[in-house]
């Protein structure tokens, strides 16, 4: 159906794809896996017409094609469902679905009747039902995803690329999505499916291709390989054994105590304690209140009810400044837009939160600042030639270390991590886990929110599972299994 031969693509300074050849059959669900930076994103962007390869050719149904721009790809029947939200919230569902493919009636008008008919037909084919007149901004995450798939289908796509389609989806919806994908396959569509969630791949895909460092490692039928082998192929080595967990943190004093935290929409009564020296993780499907609770602890989200106690005293955290003064640091999930000022130097980024500690009447102690920054850089093993290098030149893992370094001069007592290894490749992930363990052993309390099951099972001392704004499960690491966590994450209160 679709064949890519010998594709190479380079960007300034980095080779994204090197002599990659791959083929996709008609009516198959073909998964694409690999670490961050392995080249998956680049490959599908080339197929979708967003990038042009430096060398190599693409053949569609045996004929050579040139994907000069996204329009061309759509014309050839290739549609993409992106990872990022790709709808217009202020327009209705119907308008969103037909965007770019509006049926034209007489005198150049849009034929709304025909549009509605097409959409209804598509929804019937896939056994889904969404109100076409709703505003897209009112849809839930799963419905929005389905609308995006409908969008991809309106252009009579024969190949649909899905980039992390389940990223924001709760469990039940994932099943609905998978049903839809199987229906697509039944109607002859080829689905190229990118995901980090290997268990999903084993349940939905026919074949899986592994990319590593821009090269094609191999394509396998899903039946002929297991998860560990797959991971080994992706990273070229075994995953390190788990980090040892601590059990005695219970004896440590409680540093943060939350009681009955509620907010307008997401949190429905959260209570837990965080001990010094403990690594506590909050898991569960994304969108169940985890983001809100961690941002609340950093003063970035307001609540309507509940209390927080810090070192036994009741406190009110209304702004990041309040949190900072309490000794709480925050490493956000979107580090490029919220954790770093990428045009500024490493030094300026690291120095900012603690800037008030090195000043006299407002004047900064420059030498002291340089010393502290350099100390941070070496403590955290940040690879930079000079601290004046702009942060945007660093790799993902190093950038994450810079974000962590921001807080250390404040000698924080609590560190909040939101998706600590998002966009960080497996090698660098280990380094960050080691740092966390180190901080915890030095007495810092660490709270992680993560959607990475491997992370959840191997790093923290204790795990809380959120579902619809409540805690449905609490496990010590020695007792935690993937099943128990999934169970709690789907709403059943834990065993």
């Amino acid at each position, binding site marked *: 159906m679709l064949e890519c031969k010998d594709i190479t693509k380079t960007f300034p300074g980095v080779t994204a794809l090197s002599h990659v050849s791959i083929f996709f059959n008609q009516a198959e669900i073909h998964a694409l896996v690999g670490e961050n930076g392995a080249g998956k994103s680049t490959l599908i962007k080339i197929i979708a017409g967003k990038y042009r390869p430096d060398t190599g050719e693409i053949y569609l149904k045996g004929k050579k094609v040139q994907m000069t721009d*996204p329009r061309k790809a759509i014309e050839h029947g290739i549609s993409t469902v*992106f990872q990022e939200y790709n709808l*217009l919230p202020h*327009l209705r569902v119907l*308008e969103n679905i037909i*965007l*770019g493919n509006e049926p034209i009636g007489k005198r150049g008008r849009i034929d709304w009747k025909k549009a509605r008919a097409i959409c209804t037909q598509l929804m019937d084919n896939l056994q889904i039902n969404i109100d076409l007149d709703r*505003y897209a901004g009112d849809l839930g995450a799963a419905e929005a995803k389905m609308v995006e798939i409908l969008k991809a289908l309106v252009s009579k796509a024969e190949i649909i690329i899905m980039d992390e389609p389940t990223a924001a989806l709760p469990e039940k919806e994932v099943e609905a999505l998978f049903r839809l994908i199987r229906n697509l396959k039944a109607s002859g569509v080829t689905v190229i499916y990118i995901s980090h969630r290997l268990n999903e791949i084993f349940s939905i895909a026919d074949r899986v291709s592994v990319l590593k460092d821009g090269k094609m490692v191999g394509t396998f039928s899903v039946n002929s390989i297991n998860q560990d082998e797959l991971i080994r192929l992706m990273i070229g080595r075994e995953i390190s054994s788990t980090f040892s967990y601590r059990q005695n943190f219970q004896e440590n004093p409680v540093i943060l105590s939350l009681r009955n935290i509620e907010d307008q929409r997401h949190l429905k009564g959260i209570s837990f304690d965080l001990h010094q020296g403990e690594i506590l993780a909050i898991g569960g499907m994304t969108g169940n209140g985890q983001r809100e609770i961690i941002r609340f602890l950093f003063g970035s989200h307001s609540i309507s009810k509940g209390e927080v106690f810090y070192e036994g005293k009741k406190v009110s955290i209304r702004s990041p400044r309040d949190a900072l003064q309490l000794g709480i640091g925050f490493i956000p999930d979107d580090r490029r837009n919220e954790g770093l000022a990428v045009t500024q130097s490493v030094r300026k980024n690291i120095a900012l939160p603690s800037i008030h500690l090195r000043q006299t009447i407002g004047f900064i102690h420059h030498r002291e600042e340089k010393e502290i920054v350099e100390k941070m850089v070496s403590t955290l093993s940040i690879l930079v030639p000079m601290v004046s290098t702009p942060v945007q030149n660093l790799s993902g893992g190093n950038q994450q270390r810079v974000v962590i370094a921001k807080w250390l001069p404040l000698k924080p007592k609590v560190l909040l991590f939101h998706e600590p290894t998002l966009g960080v490749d497996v090698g660098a992930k280990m380094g960050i886990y080691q740092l966390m363990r180190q901080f915890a052993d030095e007495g810092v309390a660490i709270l992680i929110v993560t959607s990475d099951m491997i992370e959840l099972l191997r790093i923290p001392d204790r795990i809380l599972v959120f579902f619809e704004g409540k805690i449905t499960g609490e496990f010590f690491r020695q007792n935690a299994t993937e099943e128990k966590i999934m169970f709690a994450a789907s709403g059943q209160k834990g065993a």
Partner: protein
Amino acid sequence: MNKIYSFWYQILHPDRHSSAFIWFILLGLVIIVVAIVPEFIQINNVSNVLIQMVPLGLVSLGQGLVILGGGIDLSVGSQISLITLIAANTMTDSPVIIILSLFLCLGAGVVFGTLNGLLVHKMNIPPLIVTLCTSFIFQGLAYTLHKTTGGYIPSSFQMSLTISWGLFSIPFLLFLSFIGIEFYLLYRTRFGRYIYALGGNEEVLANAGVSVGKIKVTTYVIAGLMAAITGLYLAARVKSGGALYGVPFTLNSVTAVVVGGTPLSGGVGGLGGTIAGVAIVSMLNNVLNLISFRFNLQSSFYKEILTGLVLVIAMIFYRKRS
């Protein structure tokens, strides 16, 4: 249909997508005004207001599309001035020349709009800065063309554009026809949907395979065209050209569009709201004139303050839409 789309909810909540709300405000304002300044409702005055609305209305039709698409055009005022001067400097009594001059002016509007659009799209400069700078350029050109005599506009041209009978008038009919054209464009064609998409999220539009640049540039071209038409109309009305004729139109058109419910970030809003906004701004100006006349004040001083206040209030009011 659930509660959200019920009539009264839409009326009372300006953060939903309807313009019914602003029409109610307009009605309310009219009632208040008539109570305070009864001379407003005289046929003479109403007819005046309707005619005075026309130039602002024409310009705002264009500005509305640009802002809906997420941009802004601060050069419309100087474009208008420049067009009045081109007309005043080229027209003679010969009907052939008049027609040619007309085409020249319209063509100029298209050129100016294309310039704006290309600078915004190709050079990736924020529209605020681009149109601020092109407004300097156009204004400068207008100064060079400015003659103290005001140039020459033939009477035939003036008459054809200013005939009126009671409440009806050629200018207003002109305005209505353009409203009709824009209605079709915005609500019945693909282009209209693409403008909404452009203002909502450019990336989404690009992903759908649509040429974002074409849509963007076209909105500025339409703005330029409408500015040209406004310029021609103004030149006819006052039978001359002047470098300062267009000055109030820039801010007033932006105010009209914003008051009408289209936020500066675009993507929401529409024609109905913009027209209501034009009506409100024109009405307030007219009322100000009446009040100044009654209390013997210099209205031009207060007009400035009024415009500023109205815009600020509108922005605060509509902040949820951005």
